[in-house]
C-alpha cells in the first residue's frame, strides 16, 4: 500500500471571523447584513444600526448558496444571533443572485464604492478592487456614489487567483510573497506575460534557469502592478486612491503600483477614530460586503425596503 504524504497548500490563506465586543445586538434597531459571494472568497458582514458588528471571511466553494450559508454561519458563530433576527440582507458579488438569505442583490461595483467610502473615509476618489478573478477601477464622490467605472472580468490575469497559482508553483505561502519580494539585490525585469497560464510557464523557465526565488516573486509582483496600471490609466487616478480586495494585502504589488503611479495609496486603516482606538480588525476584502450591509441600512431608513425580521 502506497503511503500518503500530506503536502502543504501554499495558496490557502487563513479564513477569519470576528465579533464586536462593544455592541449588544439585541438593543439594536436595524440589523442589516451583506454577503459578498466572490469568485474566490465569500464575506459576510453584519451591521447593527450602521455600526460594524461582525464579519466572516471564507473561501467560496463550488456552489454559491452553500458558500453564502458558510460565510454567514462563520460570521455568526460566536454570537447568539440568528438569520431570523436580521432586518435586511443584501447579496453582492459574482454569486449575488444565488444568496438564499438575501432579500435583494446589488452589483459589486456599487457595494465596493460604498464600502470603501465607509472604511477609508469620504475623501476617497478612486477605488481599485483587486478581487479573486477580476479587477475593477471605480471613481466615487464623497458620498460613495459611483461616478465612473471600468471592470475587467474577462481575464483573470493580475488577480488574486493568479497570485494563488503562483504561490503554489514556487511553494511559498501566499501571504509571504509580498515581503519576500523586497529581499532582493536588484529589481529584476518583470514577467512579460500577463496571462496566468503563460506567466506560469515563464516562471517555470526562470526557476529552471536558477534565478533566485525572491527575484521571481519581485518579477511577478511588478508584472501584476503593471497590469493593474493599464486599467487605471484608462480611467484616470485621483487622490485619495485606495485598493480593496485580497491583493491589497500584498505589499509587493501595492508598493510597486505606487511607484509606477507616483501616488501613495490611502493607508489601510479605519476612517473612524473609535474603530481605530478599539483596535477593530481591518480586512481589505470586506469592502463589498460592508457596502451591501450599509445599503441595506440606507434602504430601510428611506422606506424603500421592508424589514424581513421574523424573531
Amino acid at each position: 500500500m502506497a503511503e500518503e504524504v500530506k503536502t502543504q497548500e501554499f495558496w490557502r490563506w487563513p479564513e477569519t471571523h470576528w465579533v464586536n465586543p462593544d455592541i449588544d445586538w439585541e438593543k439594536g434597531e436595524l440589523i442589516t447584513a451583506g454577503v459578498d459571494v466572490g469568485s474566490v472568497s465569500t464575506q459576510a458582514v453584519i451591521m447593527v444600526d450602521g455600526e460594524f458588528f461582525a464579519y466572516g471571511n471564507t473561501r467560496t466553494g463550488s456552489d454559491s448558496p452553500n458558500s453564502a450559508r458558510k460565510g454567514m454561519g462563520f460570521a455568526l458563530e460566536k454570537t447568539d444571533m440568528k438569520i431570523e433576527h436580521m432586518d435586511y440582507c443584501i447579496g453582492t458579488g459574482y454569486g449575488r443572485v444565488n444568496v438564499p438569505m438575501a432579500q435583494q442583490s446589488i452589483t459589486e461595483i456599487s457595494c465596493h464604492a460604498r464600502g470603501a467610502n465607509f472604511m477609508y473615509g469620504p475623501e476617497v476618489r478612486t477605488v481599485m478592487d483587486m478581487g479573486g478573478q477580476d479587477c475593477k477601477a471605480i471613481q466615487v464622490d464623497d458620498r460613495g456614489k459611483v461616478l465612473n467605472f471600468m471592470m475587467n472580468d474577462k481575464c483573470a490575469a493580475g488577480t488574486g487567483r493568479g497570485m494563488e497559482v503562483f504561490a503554489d508553483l514556487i511553494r511559498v505561502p501566499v501571504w509571504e510573497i509580498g515581503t519576500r519580494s523586497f529581499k532582493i539585490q536588484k529589481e529584476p525585469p518583470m514577467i512579460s506575460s500577463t496571462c496566468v497560464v503563460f506567466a506560469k510557464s515563464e516562471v517555470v523557465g526562470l526557476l529552471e534557469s536558477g534565478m533566485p526565488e525572491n527575484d521571481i516573486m519581485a518579477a511577478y509582483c511588478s508584472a501584476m502592478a503593471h497590469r493593474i496600471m493599464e486599467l487605471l490609466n484608462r480611467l484616470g487616478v485621483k487622490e485619495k486612491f485606495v485598493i480593496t480586495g485580497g491583493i491589497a494585502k500584498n505589499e509587493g504589488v501595492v508598493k510597486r503600483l505606487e511607484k509606477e503611479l507616483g501616488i501613495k495609496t490611502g493607508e489601510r486603516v479605519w476612517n473612524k477614530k473609535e474603530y481605530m482606538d478599539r483596535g477593530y480588525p481591518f480586512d481589505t476584502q470586506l469592502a463589498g460586503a460592508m457596502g451591501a450591509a450599509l445599503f441595506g441600512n440606507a434602504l430601510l431608513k428611506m422606506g424603500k425596503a421592508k424589514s424581513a425580521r421574523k424573531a
Partner: protein
Amino acid sequence: MIANYGFGDGSGDWYVTIDTDKCNGCGKCPEVCPARILEVGPDEIDLFRKEPVAFVKQEERKKIKYSCAPCRPGYGAEPAPCVGICEPKAITHSEGWKLQFGSR
C-alpha cells in the same frame, strides 16, 4: 455616471461607454442595435436613480468585441446606429476597433 461596459485585452480596448447623466432612457438604442446588446431598464449601479437608463446586457459584456464588430467605428456605417439615434449623445465606442482593424 460614466459606465464602461466591455473589456480590454491584448488586442485593444473594447468598451461601449454610456454616460448615464446624459441618457434619458428613451429606449431608441435597443431598437436600432443589430446585435441587440443594449437594454433600457432600472439603473443597477445607482440604486437611487428613478428614471430608466440604457445599459449593455450582462451576458453580452464579455462578447462586445465580436457582437459590436459589424458597426465598429471606422468599419460600419458612420456613426454607429446606437450612437446616431441617441439624441443626448450618451453613447460612445472605444477606439479598439479602429486600432486593430484600421479604417475601411
